[in-house]
């Protein structure tokens, strides 16, 4: 098991490195930092441009393969190069990732819990009106792109604010510029900013988790051991919780880990709509600023997250299902 896991991780590390280098090559071909520097007003002297390009490792006079190699080898020193604004890419990533995770963690965890509860309820009350309503609503949320759902929620929140006459729900940025300095006031301000994006994440998470949980639960409900548990005298509720839900959660646990990666990719769009200064915004801004190093760094970050979550889901699966272990 350990050897298998180590081989897996090594393979993934190589994959990530190659994938990020590929993104670097793509960014180097597509983006033109020279043009961005030459377009500066007042004009920058040619020698300064050359120096700056060398510092970024983006001088088009060097062959692309050489620049990529330098970037790739620096990766092993934990150095992702400089941004066009003279920051270390790694420092910038740390700040941005913090913002993104702040947004993601609450939403994805609550969304998963709500989804699991709705899924179990739907399976137990199969074909009842409540089940039909939940199913239809989750279909509807599935069919709505993340950014559309975000803007729809903004429209509703605006109406709500107008109706009650104050700005209770704020949906631009992480914190107001004039937030009260004291701890509780600041926290309240942040929470009112956090409310809407988190709600959207919960809706998206609950919609997909509830579908999977409902199916996992339906599989379990028909199983013989539930009947056995009932016939030995357990009440329906106890049989369902002690023998049904616990088993139905096993396939879900790997799904949680796996879907975290895809959730992150979707949440980058959410950040942009709600003007949070997270990873998604950085990726878009750095492309607009022709900043090769930042783009490659952001891609690397997301790639690492995707791999971490898929490794985690494999490990969980192996841990929970002995048949997979070798």
């Amino acid at each position: 098991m350990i050897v298998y896991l180590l081989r897996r991780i090594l393979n993934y590390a190589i994959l990530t490195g190659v994938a990020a280098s590929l993104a670097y090559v793509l960014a180097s071909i597509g983006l033109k930092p020279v043009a961005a520097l030459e377009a500066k007003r007042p004009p920058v002297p040619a020698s300064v441009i050359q120096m700056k390009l060398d510092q970024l490792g983006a001088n088009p006079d060097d062959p692309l393969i050489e620049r990529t190699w330098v970037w790739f080898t620096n990766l092993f020193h934990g150095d992702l190069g400089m941004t066009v604004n003279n920051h270390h890419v790694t420092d910038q990533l740390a700040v941005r990732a913090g913002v993104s995770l702040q947004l993601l963690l609450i939403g994805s965890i609550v969304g998963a819990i709500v989804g699991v509860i709705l899924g179990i309820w739907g399976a137990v009350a199969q074909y009842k009106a409540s089940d039909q309503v939940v199913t239809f609503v989750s279909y509807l949320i599935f069919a709505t792109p993340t950014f559309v759902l975000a803007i729809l929620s903004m429209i509703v929140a605006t109406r709500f604010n107008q109706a009650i006459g104050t700005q209770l729900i704020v949906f631009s940025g992480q914190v107001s510029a004039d937030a009260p300095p004291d701890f509780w006031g600041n926290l309240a301000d942040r929470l009112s900013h956090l409310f809407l994006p988190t709600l959207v994440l919960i809706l998206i998470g609950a919609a997909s988790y509830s579908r999977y949980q409902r199916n996992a639960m339906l599989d379990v409900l028909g199983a013989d051991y539930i009947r056995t548990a009932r016939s030995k005298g357990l009440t329906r509720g106890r049989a369902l919780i002690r023998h049904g839900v616990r088993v139905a959660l096993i396939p879900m646990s790997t799904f949680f880990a796996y879907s975290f990666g895809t959730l992150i990719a979707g949440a980058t769009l959410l950040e942009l709509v709600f003007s949070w200064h997270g990873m998604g915004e950085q990726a878009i801004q750095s492309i607009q600023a022709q900043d090769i190093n930042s783009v490659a760094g952001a891609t690397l970050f997301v790639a690492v997250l995707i791999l971490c979550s898929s490794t985690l889901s494999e490990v969980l699966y192996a841990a929970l299902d002995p048949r997979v272990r070798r």
Partner: protein
Amino acid sequence: MSLSDIDKLTEGASGFGVDVPEDPRPVGRRKSISRSGLVWQRLKATPRFWAGAGVLAALFLFATVGPLLSPYSITDQDVMAFNAAPTAAHWFGTDTLGHDILVQTMVGLQKSLVIGFVAGPLATALAAIIGSFAGYVGGATDKVISWFIDLMLVLPTFFILILLYPFFKGNWVVMMFFLAFTGWMIMAQVVRSQTRSLRERDFVKAARYMGFNAWSVVTRHVIPNVASLLIIDATLGVGAMILSETALSFFGFGVQPPDVSLGTLLENGQAAATTRSWLFLAPAGVLVILLLAINFVGDALRDAVDPTSGVNRG
């Protein structure tokens, strides 16, 4: 030998020396049914399929016939009605320049439909070719292709498509192909593993030992056996591609003016979403209905092909 041939052979043997009725199809003997016929029968009985297909057909008419019936074109400006809320003259309202949103939505839907219905099946075709080839040939080729698929899966698709933007710069036809090139990997993995098990089946082995080359065996015996999966993937792929297109265009990295798609309309409507919400709600509503219809058809297809599939049971 097809199933109907077997029917003919066994027909004469059905009477045990007793008088065989003249009717070639005795009571209790059902007409044998082909697999596609069976799938179609199940599909016919699914209300979700009819709902989805009906809405999809209506949207097709809306996008193709609609602009012809509309008194406005997408460049017409109604100087009497800037920023008008929905009225009898402009059912979906107008924007700042007096453009009729209804006709804009129809034309935008047209582009989104074309992109979805070309890129989705194209991605599936790529998945079928690459997946079955890797699974059938096996060995080092399979290892290399699988590794490449893993590599593509690691790259965040949306970032990569944005990075590819300088290569297509508003040319939506090229963008359509890029969408397909970044959306085939998961299905290719499925096809590959299916092919690996099919490869060991007797009828595939027989074809191989008869001397057919890899291409013939794959196209005649492997692809038909995964066809149902491919059809489902192509259907759901249409929705996925439309979703990618709208997201890309929404953030300014997809379809560019003067071309109109649902994504560009959503982008235009976004700024005024909270004040003049019809600018946003019209394309958003059409998009959600479209994706809902596609998902309904795709799920109904999946259930018809595999009634035990858990994904949308009940």
